[in-house]
């Protein structure tokens, strides 16, 4: 059972490490430390693509809030990071099929946008 996912796993590993090298904390601080619709969109897109471990992502999100990023932007970034995983799609599709995997990610993205906007209203 483990050997079955080794091909998907090795491709996902390549995708993860390239995305993590592009989206470094320094780069993201630069991209996300302002508060326009464009920055909000970038936060959602980066959060969806990247797979950033919690011990990097949460401290980074804290810094972004202190630097003046909006609550919506930061919660959108965190929520897409947690719920949407584009680089891990090959592994997800291996288990549930491409249609179900894409559908779960699309619905989660939509949900994350709603959560982010609601967070901005509430906090």
């Amino acid at each position, binding site marked *: 059972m*483990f050997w079955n996912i080794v091909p998907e796993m090795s491709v996902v*590993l390549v995708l993860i490490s390239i995305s993590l090298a592009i989206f470094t904390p320094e780069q993201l601080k630069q991209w996300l430390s302002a508060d326009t619709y464009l920055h909000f969109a970038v936060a959602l897109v980066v959060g969806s693509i990247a797979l950033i471990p919690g011990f990097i992502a949460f401290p980074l999100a804290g810094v972004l809030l202190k630097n003046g990023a909006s609550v919506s932007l930061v919660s959108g970034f965190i929520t897409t990071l*947690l719920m949407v995983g584009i680089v891990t799609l090959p*592994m997800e599709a291996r288990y*549930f099929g491409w249609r179900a995997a894409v559908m779960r990610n699309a619905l*989660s993205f939509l*949900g994350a946008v709603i959560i982010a906007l609601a*967070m901005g209203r509430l906090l």
Partner: protein
Amino acid sequence: MKTGSKNLISLGVTIFFLLFCVYGVWSVHNDFAKRVAVSYLGFLKEMLSVLPMMFLLIGIFDVWVPRDIVERHVGKDAGPIAVLWMILLSMLQAGPLYGAFPVAAALSKKGCAARYVFVYLGAFSVMKLPMLGFEITFLGLRFSMVRLLLTLPVFIVIGYVMGRSYTCIAE
């Protein structure tokens, strides 16, 4: 796609990638290649430590948990209380979301309804206790709790929507 050609493509991608890393790090001393190589090794270590553990747990679950117990509590005829079981199960776990995919597939094979499998994946992605601790430390209790309360209905709805399209998800 055929399994054979798929394996060949992944092998090709991996070899090309590793050559790129070796060339970038040792030959031209490129910073980007160095960062890529460092995160590759980090994630390789993480995957190799997380996945075998998950498969061990799945193996035990497969042998020791009878199908009728799974069907009765979280099967297609089980009530909404099953959502609570899935959330409790996911909260007690740790690790990245890709570690939960094989667990979700194993649950499905044992007769867990698709809607509850997706509720499990949703809860796993946003409610793991070790991760919540981290979030509270860096973003505050208020931020984390409001996010949690807003996310809870969202992933339950997603689970039920997915459950309408899929009755059985793992082959």
